[in-house]
Each structure stands twice: as C-alpha cells, then as structure tokens.
C-alpha cells in the first residue's frame, strides 16, 4: 500500500484505504477521545451540575422566602382580626357599661325624687298637723272669746272653757267629716 502513495497517482483506487492513514486516524482519534474524556467532559458536566444546582438552590430559596412571607402575612392578618375583635368587644362593653350607668342614674334619680316627694309629703303633713293643732287652740280661744262676748258670760274657768271647746270641736269634726272633708284635703 505504501508504494501506492508514491506510485503513479492515477493507479490508486480511492476506495482502497492506505494502511498508514488508518493507523494514523486510530492514533489521533484515540488521543482526542481520551483527552476529551479526561479534560473536557468532566468540566462541562461539572459546570452543568453547578448551574442546575444554582438554579434549583435559587428556586428553593425563593420558595422558602415566599412561604416565610405568606406566614408573616397570615400572622399579621390574624393579629389584625384579633385587634378588630378586641375593639368590638371593648365597644360592646362600653355600651353595656354606659347603659348600666344610665339605668343606675335613672334609678337613683327616681329614688331621690321619691325620697324628696316623700319628704315633702311628711313635711306637709307635719305642717298641716301643726296648723291643725294651732288652729284648734286658736279657734278655741277665738270662739270662746266670741261666744263670751255674745253670751256675756265669762268663761274664765279654764276647765269649763276647755270642756266647752272640746265638745264644740268634736261636734264640728263630726259633721265636718261629711261637709268640710274636701276643704281639709
């Protein structure tokens, strides 16, 4: 075959390989293959793996951040709801308290009013009683005075005088209860 290279060019059939070329291609390709296997492919693979890892790491970091934010948001919303609830509760309590205070005040005012009215009533009663007593005394004096003058008879005797007045008043009261009752009240 070696002679074919150096021999007349036309004589060589292109389909017939030259042995030295086969050997050379085998050697060159073997060197190329082992160098690529040893130096190139591991580097590329390492880069690919690192890149995948970086992307996946970034994704998982973003995911955890997202979850964290979600949790925080939920917590804040819960806090907000709690605060709203609390506010409503306080408002309700205040309203109740206000109503209670108002009713208490009303009650005490009512009591006070009743008391005042009662007081007034008893005072009036007492005063009336007093007036009645003094009237009774005065009426006696006036009546005896008047009667004395009319009758001309001195009724100096205390005992007799008071007996007469009592009798008169008793009479007066007995028919006064039917005729002058409205006047007293």
């Amino acid at each position: 075959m070696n002679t074919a290279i150096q021999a007349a060019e036309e004589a060589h059939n292109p389909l017939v390989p030259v042995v030295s070329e086969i050997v050379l291609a085998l050697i060159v390709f073997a060197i190329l293959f082992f160098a690529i296997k040893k130096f190139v492919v591991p580097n590329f693979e390492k880069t690919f793996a690192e890149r995948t890892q970086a992307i996946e790491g970034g994704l998982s970091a973003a995911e955890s951040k997202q979850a964290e934010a979600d949790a925080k948001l939920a917590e804040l919303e819960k806090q907000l709801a709690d605060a709203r609830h609390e506010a409503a509760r306080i408002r309700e309590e205040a309203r109740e308290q206000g109503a209670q205070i108002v009713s208490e005040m009303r009650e005490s005012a009512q009591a006070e009013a009743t008391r005042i009215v009662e007081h007034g009533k008893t005072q009036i009663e007492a005063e009336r009683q007093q007036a009645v007593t003094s009237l009774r005394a005065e009426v006696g004096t006036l009546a005896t005075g008047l009667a004395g003058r009319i009758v001309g008879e001195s009724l100096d005797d205390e005992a007799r005088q008071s007996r007469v007045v009592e009798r008169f008043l008793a009479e007066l009261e007995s028919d006064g209860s039917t005729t002058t009752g409205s006047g007293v009240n």
Partner: protein
Amino acid sequence: MSFHVSLSEGGESAEGGFHAPGPGSFELPPVFHVADFGVTKPMLLLILSAVLILAFTIAASGKRQLVPGRLQFAGEAVYGFVRNTLARDNIGSEHYMKFVPYLFSLFMFILVNNYYGIIPFLQFSSFSRIGFVIPLAIISWFVYIGTGVWKHGLFGYLKHATMPSGVSGPILLLLVPLEFFSNILVRPVTLTLRLFGNMFAGHLLLILFATGGAALLTSGNLLYGGVGILSFALGIGVSFLEMLVMFLQAYVFTLLSSMYIGEALADEH
C-alpha cells in the same frame, strides 16, 4: 460545442492542457519525509484537527463559569447539542453519559475535518481519504456491538439484533440472515461510504468548478469565458451547499452511531 472534458480519464483535453479533476486529485504528494515515510497534507490536517479541537474544548470548558462567556457558551452549545440531542434522546437517559465522550469526540473530529474543505489554503476534507473514515466506522461498530453484548450477552445480543419481535415460524429463515446482514455487516460499510462519498464528491465538485472555470476563462474564447464566469458562480453556490453537507455528515455519522447504541441497549425493538 466542440469543447468537452473527459472526467473519467483524468487526461488532457484537446484545448490548452486542461487537467480535469479525478480520483488522482486526492493523491497528494508527501509534504516531507520522515525517514522513508512520506507525510502528506491530509495526515497533517488530521493531526491539526485534534490540536484545534482540544484547544477549543479545553479552553471552553476550563473556566467553568455559571454565567458563561462567549467561548464557554459556544463550547457548551456544541457539547450540549451532542449530549442532549444526539446521545440522550437516542440512547436513553440511563446509560447515555457513558457514550457522550465518544460521541462528542466523534462529532467534533468529523466536523472539523470536514470543514477543512472550504477553508482557504487548507481546502481538503480529510475524510475524502477513505483510510481516515474506516477506523471511525469500525470503532462505532465495536462500540455498539460491544454495548449490545454487554447488555444482552453474546447470544442474547445476536438474537436481539437478528430476530424481530413478533415474528415466528419459517419466515425467520429468511429474516434472520437479512437482519444479520443489515444490522451487523452492512452498517460499518454504509457509515464509511456515506461520509467518504460525500466528502469525496464535494471536493471533486469544487475542484471541477474552480479549475474548469479557470480553464474556460483563460481559453481566449469570449463565449467560453462567459461560461467560465458562470462556472465560478456555481462553484460559490456549491461551496455553500458543501458547508451544509459537511455539517450534515458529521451530524448523521454521530446520530447513526448513537442510534445503533440505543438500539443495542433497547429491551425490545
């Protein structure tokens, strides 16, 4: 038209000593001799390709930045293409990483050597020399047969490769030899011929359009000159076609290798 070029003979035409390209155009004289051994341009190109590929891939993979620069991005794009599209999709995600170094080396090796064909001054696709293609096809053959034997055992693999599932009876007498022939014997041959033939023919076409155009232009005949310009224009068009073919052949060779491996690994086919 009385002008005609005899392609098959590679001889001289009647007009002005035009040397038509032929198989002889691929027999380059040795550039220099080591002892008694003649070192030719394709041999040097082949060695250069390994140097270029290693320089590029080691530089591109060495920095290992998470956000790649231009060089690293380019390296990762090619590597990722071979790794994901060619290896993983055909072999399956379980075993593909074992074959990525081989497939990546193969793809880069074929790609660079093919593109020599359109690089000025180099202008010779190494794989238009069949001697360079045969080892690659044989390695691929060993790899996929070896994978099948590793996975199924020797007889298991032979059965796996030659007996289509769901077929039984006397038809197997016909099918088994056919399957054996097509799956085991023919594959390395077609791998070789496909790559070699494309590169050989492409190179031949480019030489023809270039040298033919030059010969026509310098023929002194105005009409021939016009055809010569047309020939150059066509040569440019063919160059672009060749760029596509050069990539496609690297792609197809690697794709088929990984498909064969995937098939050998498959449980049923």
